[in-house]
């Protein structure tokens, strides 16, 4: 049942739990209990809302920053990752394979805000060797949801 609940919640976080129970064909009380348990166990780590700020006319700047770092003895990348993710303007930090070590996503109100975070906070960290900042120009699809187009019912009536 856990997997059924999570599969649905992953894309429909705002569903009420009694409705969720109907949709997946399970008993309401057990669904509620399972969700509560999974929240306590941090299997469900949080609920977020995917917002198309652009439509509201609110300016936001997002950058994906490739960061190369020197891993530290005994802690690998964990300490430096923590030094970075502790800033509230950082929305995600991933350790990745490839040409850099950490992929850091930063959200700010303006270009200047983001770039000053990179130059003043990120680049100055002791173990950071280099950074490469990629500003996001347009979001086509985010979290599995297509942002760039409207869906319309084009079906015609026939037999």
């Amino acid at each position, binding site marked *: 049942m856990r997997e059924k609940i999570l599969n*649905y919640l992953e894309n429909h976080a705002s569903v009420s739990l009694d409705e969720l129970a109907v*949709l997946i064909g399970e008993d309401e009380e057990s669904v509620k209990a399972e969700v509560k348990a999974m929240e306590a166990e941090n299997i469900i780590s949080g609920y977020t809302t995917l917002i198309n700020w652009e439509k509201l006319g609110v300016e936001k700047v997002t950058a994906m920053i490739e960061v190369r770092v020197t891993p530290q003895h005994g802690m690998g990348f964990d300490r430096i990752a923590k030094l970075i993710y502790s800033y509230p303007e950082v929305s995600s930090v991933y350790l990745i394979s490839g040409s850099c070590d950490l992929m850091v996503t930063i959200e700010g109100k303006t270009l200047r805000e983001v770039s000053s975070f990179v130059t003043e906070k990120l680049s100055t960290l002791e173990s950071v060797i280099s950074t490469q900042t990629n500003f996001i120009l347009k979001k086509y699809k985010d979290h599995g949801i297509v942002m760039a187009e409207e869906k319309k019912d084009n079906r015609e009536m026939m*037999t």
Partner: protein
Amino acid sequence: MRDPLSKTIKDIKPSGIRKFFDVARTMEGAVSLGVGEPDFDTPWRIRSEGIYSLENGRTFYTSNTGLIELRQEISKYLARKYDIHYDADDEIMVTIGGSEAIDVALRAMLDPGDEVLIPQPSYVSYVPCTILAGGVPVIINLKEEDEFRLKSKDLEEKITDKTKILVLPYPNNPTGAIMEKKDLEEMAEVIKKHDLFVLTDEIYSELTYKEKHVTIASLPGMKERTVYINGFSKAFAMTGWRLGYACAPKVILKQMLKIHQFAIMCAPTTSQYAAIEALKNCDDEVAAMKEEYNERRRFLVHEFKDMGLPCFEPFGAFYIFPCIKKFGMSSEEFVNRLLQEEKVAVVPGTAFGDSGEGFIRISYAYSLDDLKIALDRIRKFVAKF
């Protein structure tokens, strides 16, 4: 001037599904639960194969029976999914949707006066296609207390020495009924006893929500008596690609192929290339769509129960068929008033045969959000009585 038309065609009524929707279309704020096709777009990987085939200039006819690669994939798919085994060389033919296959099969098998047993409520084309093929349609009225499954007693009652074919329209449009293995075994006995043939229309076979779908063609001694029809429209959300197929014993298929050859030539080439991808690599996409239909199905069953509208639980296709008898109106009246007063368009059960009287067909090939809006309105409507 002489009458340019044939008597046969003039006597055939046009389909009754669409008439409410012409009204709904012009009505501000109307919502429709009427469309009988998936609301999903064709999975992208299928579409991209279609595009790729065009880029590569695959714009010629294929062989009459369809691309051999596609027939081989159909053969593998049917074996893997439903445990039926058809030879890609001479037992499978690719058609313009399941609907062409129905027409061609009836024309290939009927002589004037042969009777065709058609359980109703069911899809609208079996009766006219039978008449156009010179056959005589004999209706078997299905009952709600049987969950609209065909029962051997009702079948045997209608068998005469002229009966040749039984149409098996399951999973069923418009009722959402299915036939499970035990139901089919009961049928198979009667069919063999009376030396009948079966035309099984399994276009909704991917959309069942109980046990795994079973086809009558997989039962002992039935393959040689069965024309098996399926297609890509419902399972892969490919209605507009117009692609289906028929599988039958060689002796039958060979004659069906003649009709197809002279009337159609071959199914659309682009669609055939796209369909290969559908069969090979789209199990996950199909499963995801099915799960979403199932969520909506559970939601509707729950809602109708909650508003006191009696409805047997449908386990197939994407339709639910609630009973509206307690309101003392005919289906058509109910549907008309629902449209006028609450602006929800549904289809009266009678569009699928007289035994659909007292029922309405609701399609859940709509997003959950749309269904919620429509169901709120239906709830308001039934609360008036």
